[in-house]
């Protein structure tokens, strides 16, 4: 079992397509293009060459021995997606989708971004491939992440501040969808996570599953066996599904997703859609959603802008319901503790998103003990978070 969805993108009761009719044509065109590309040797070779000479793949794994002392002595292995060009796993997806954009004959991409990581990656791919690029970003986020706004502009993209709704990531997605409805003939919507209408959850997963494929081989070569658990942080869930997917058919491997519990799930101020939400429809698919009794989306809260999203990819919703993956909440405080710990024990400053997975590793390592092996997707580096972290820890800037 490696592919669980049906041809219409249903993962059990989740996924599917809840969009204006105007987008159906474009989604069908995209689905046809990505299915064709999957078996096209030219496309496969082109993407592999880009990953080798541009992304920096395969990314290495690192045995985090000093960090492991704080995680029950379990063997902690980090998959270093932070070393990719642009500093996170996001580049895997944008290069794939940008290549598809060119194959579909479209000249313009649009993207949404929260913290700016996906926006920077999309702007990078657009620069590399000569595509026009407009990035929608909540007005609040453009203020909080001004450095990434500048990066996108340096890369030649336009950044469009979104002033509707809560002025954050979910509203940036709404605005990108509105642009797409209007300009669908010339424009590809380069969605940044495993959510949205079919085929996005399947397609984005397929561009990220290389993370699990590489690391499964690397861990086997290093340790001679499969890990006991694979951990990743979950916002929309793209880095998590990327590392989980190859392991789904390995029943001995536990898959554990760490959601952002913010101030604590019980406070209501969190972004843990599976642990603290309920099934509903948001942004074109059925999944777990933070919503009120009228089906209105509730604003999410997390110190990590990249996890600050009130939904989650439908494949995660399904893996949760069938019990194949577990999802736990990690609070801001737990994540920041792990952030500091990895920095000081391994000399690696992780993204705050990723720090949620590291906090999970401290828990799971203590549960499983010294003979266990835990693989963690180190999905991004923390340069972008230095200001937030300095503020959190009271370091004067």
């Amino acid at each position, binding site marked *: 079992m490696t592919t669980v969805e049906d041809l219409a993108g249903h993962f059990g009761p989740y996924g599917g397509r809840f969009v204006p009719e105007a987008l159906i044509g474009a989604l069908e065109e995209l689905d046809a293009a990505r299915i064709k590309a999957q078996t096209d040797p030219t496309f496969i070779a082109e993407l592999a060459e880009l990953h080798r000479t541009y992304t920096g793949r395969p990314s290495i794994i690192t045995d985090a021995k000093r960090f492991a002392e704080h995680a029950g002595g379990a063997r902690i292995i980090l998959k270093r997606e932070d070393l990719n060009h642009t500093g996170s796993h996001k580049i895997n997806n944008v290069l794939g989708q940008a290549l598809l954009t060119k194959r579909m004959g479209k000249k313009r991409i649009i993207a949404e971004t929260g913290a700016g990581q996906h926006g920077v990656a999309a702007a990078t791919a657009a620069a590399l491939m000569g595509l026009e690029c407009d990035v929608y970003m909540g007005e609040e986020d453009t203020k909080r992440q001004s450095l990434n706004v500048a990066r996108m502009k340096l890369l030649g993209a336009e950044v469009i501040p979104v002033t509707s709704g809560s002025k954050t990531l979910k509203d940036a997605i709404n605005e990108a969808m509105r642009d797409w409805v209007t300009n669908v003939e010339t424009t590809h919507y380069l969605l940044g996570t495993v959510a949205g209408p079919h085929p996005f959850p399947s397609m984005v997963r397929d561009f990220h599953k290389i993370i699990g494929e590489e690391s499964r081989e690397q861990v086997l070569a290093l340790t001679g066996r499969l890990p006991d658990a694979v951990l990743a942080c979950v916002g929309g869930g793209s880095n998590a599904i990327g590392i989980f997917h190859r392991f789904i058919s390995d029943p001995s491997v536990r898959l554990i997703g760490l959601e952002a519990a913010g101030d604590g799930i019980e406070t209501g101020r969190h972004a843990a859609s599976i642990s603290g939400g309920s099934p509903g429809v948001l942004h074109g698919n059925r999944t777990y959603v933070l919503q009120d009794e*009228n089906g209105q989306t509730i604003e999410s809260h997390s110190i990590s802008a990249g996890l600050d999203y009130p939904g989650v990819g439908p494949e995660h919703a399904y893996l949760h319901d069938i019990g194949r993956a577990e999802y736990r909440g990690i609070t801001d405080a737990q994540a920041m503790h792990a952030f500091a710990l990895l920095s000081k024990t391994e000399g690696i400053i992780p993204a705050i998103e990723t720090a949620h997975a590291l906090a999970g590793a401290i828990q799971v390592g203590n549960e499983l003990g010294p003979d266990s092996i835990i693989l963690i997707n180190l999905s991004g580096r923390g340069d972008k978070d230095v200001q937030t972290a300095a503020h959190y820890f009271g370091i004067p800037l």
Partner: protein
Amino acid sequence: MATALDDLFVKVRSENRAALIAYIPAGFPSIEGCKKVIKAFVDGGVDAIEIGFPYSDPVMDGPTIQAAADQSLSQGTGAGEVFDALKTASGLGVAAVVMTYWNPIEKYGVEKFAQAIVDNGGSGVITPDLTIEESGTWKAAVAKTGINPIYVVAPSTTEARLPMVTSQCGGFVYAASLMGVTGTRTSVSSGAPDLVARIRTTTGLPVSVGLGVSTREQAKGVAGYADGVIVGSAFIKAIQDAPDEESGLTAVRELASELAKGVREGR
């Protein structure tokens, strides 16, 4: 059994004109104010009313309706207020439907929602983000309650797909005049007559055109080829631009009466 909406289209066909359909989100400009707007619609000569269920993430809507939905939500509008507004409209003797994104229906309970439409005198529901592929539970609820399921088709809907959508519609087919979101525009898309003609090759149902209609001249133009003319953002703008509630209601009544003339001048 025929709904009030079905009866309306029989009537306007016999009068050789188009129907005027007006949109207002429940709870806008306020929960009580919305009911006054509904009354102003009817006084101005509107034939049918769409009550919008304000939603936090309305991807089909432009800035005007988004702002109205936000204003409504901030006053606590929920399903109860939507059905109240529906009842107000149907109580005034016009055909009334709800327009809503899918999640509020799913959250309320699909069959329960359809039944609440009937219980409040409504004729049907417009579902702008429910694709026919995902419509299984809705189809069952519609069949059980006899309400009109109104789906939206777009200029990009292919020949192959068009009959699949229109064969599931009841009441009328909602033709989105252009590729884009709701809002007023200086002219109605030239693609609209073509889309309506394509729809008519697949169904005998009435066809109503929405997106971008705001003036008597535009209503007249659309009434030349469509059975219904849908106006939303122009009414909301009239309310937003008015200095106070009373002048807003007057503006709504006057715009409705202009548009009502337009839908009678098209043929």
